[in-house]
């Protein structure tokens, strides 16, 4: 038993290292056993579909950690446009803008629109700091959403749920879903077969990574309890501007890179925030993510692609 646990840790550690080491490696987690293969972009599309995740584009950010966040978003979209297989759609896991200014939203829309894909957004805390505390975001992206911007949709048998955990934050706490959204989630999942693959996406991680930095969601356990009966749950988050992953039962958690600037790993700096790295290293720490669903395969394949040339 103990031996098995050790092996698990080793595997996970190796997986983490591999993710950091390279791009273009396709990771599949089947039954908790990770397998890797060189990425052949065409073969997966026949039996399933792939979609993209971009996150934390912080359009308008111009500080030393990246004086041109719009430029690196443009590079990220360039990578997406150049992909040989067209993804089904894209999700953006928040912090589209840096300061919720109309021009920043406009610039983001103009660049992201060049991918010519449907984009499903959830807000980050930077997207709801206009004078009206989120109205600018909802007017633009929340047409079919409930509450502060949460919603669900289906794609080829996979149920996608976009959650908002950046509003009504409580002193001393972390991210927050709130009772209304949890009630909506319970209702949304009611009657769904346990074999329905579920993808949940939200800005702040739905697992506790670093409470001292607010990297977690206060009431995520209640959401995860509602998801516990499903055989395949993939949780995609942003906010921390670095790759991390965790497997807990049937739930696989992934955080994404930013397209704007990296942040330090917990425990390596006194505080979170934009991390200044040598200019030549920046693009290796930024990136986009491709996620592939294959019919009959429990776990979705996650491929992280850095902006390094």
């Amino acid at each position, binding site marked *: 038993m103990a031996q098995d646990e050790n092996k698990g840790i080793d595997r996970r550690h190796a997986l983490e290292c591999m993710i950091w080491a390279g791009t273009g490696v396709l990771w599949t987690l089947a039954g908790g056993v990770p397998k890797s293969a060189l990425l052949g972009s065409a073969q997966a599309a026949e039996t399933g579909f792939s979609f993209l995740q971009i996150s934390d584009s912080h359009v308008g950010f111009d500080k030393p950690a990246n004086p041109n966040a719009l430029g690196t978003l443009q590079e990220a979209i360039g990578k997406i446009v150049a992909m040989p297989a067209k993804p089904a759609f894209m999700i953006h896991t928040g912090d589209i803008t840096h*300061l919720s200014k109309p021009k920043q939203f406009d610039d983001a829309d103009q660049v992201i629109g060049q991918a010519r894909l449907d984009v499903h957004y959830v807000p980050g*805390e930077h997207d709801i*700091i206009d004078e009206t505390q989120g109205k600018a975001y909802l007017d633009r992206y929340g047409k079919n959403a409930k509450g502060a911007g949460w919603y669900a949709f289906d794609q080829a048998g996979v149920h996608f749920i976009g959650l908002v955990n950046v509003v009504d934050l409580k*002193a*001393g706490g*972390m991210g927050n879903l709130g009772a209304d959204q949890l009630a909506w989630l319970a209702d949304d999942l009611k009657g769904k077969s346990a074999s329905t693959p579920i993808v949940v996406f939200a800005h702040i991680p739905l697992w506790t990574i670093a*409470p001292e930095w607010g990297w977690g969601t206060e009431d995520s356990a209640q959401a995860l309890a509602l998801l516990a009966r499903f055989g395949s749950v993939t949780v995609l988050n942003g906010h921390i501007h670095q790759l991390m992953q965790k497997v807990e039962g049937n739930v696989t958690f992934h955080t994404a890179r930013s397209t704007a600037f990296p942040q330090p790993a917990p425990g390596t700096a006194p505080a979170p*925030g934009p991390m200044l790295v040598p200019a030549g290293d920046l693009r290796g720490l930024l990136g986009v993510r491709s996620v592939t669903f294959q019919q009959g395969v429990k776990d979705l394949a996650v491929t992280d692609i850095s902006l390094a040339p």
Partner: protein
Amino acid sequence: MIRSFDKRWRRARMGALAIGAALALFFCQMLLAQADDANISIDNFAFAPAVLTVKPGATVTFENHDDIPHLVVAVDGKYRSKALDTNDKFSIAFDKPGEYAYFCGLHPHMKGKIIVAP
């Protein structure tokens, strides 16, 4: 004639003295109030000082030095700043004695307290 002029002169002088004294008192109070005003700096996702004690009537000014915006929100909901970008400031006066807890509306793990005491 001379007497009455002298009397008027004395009255005027007393009036001027009274105005002068009032003005002096006024400026004194202003100086005192200014001396009680205080600043809270936001650096590396933290308020400094995290606990600040001021006299009633003091104005407290927050200034953000991070590359990330922050937002000052009263725990009791009485005030909420706009998003403070790098080097933006937000000032608020505290008239009544008491303890006023606040936090960052974007990064709620950032907390602070202002104690207003005579």
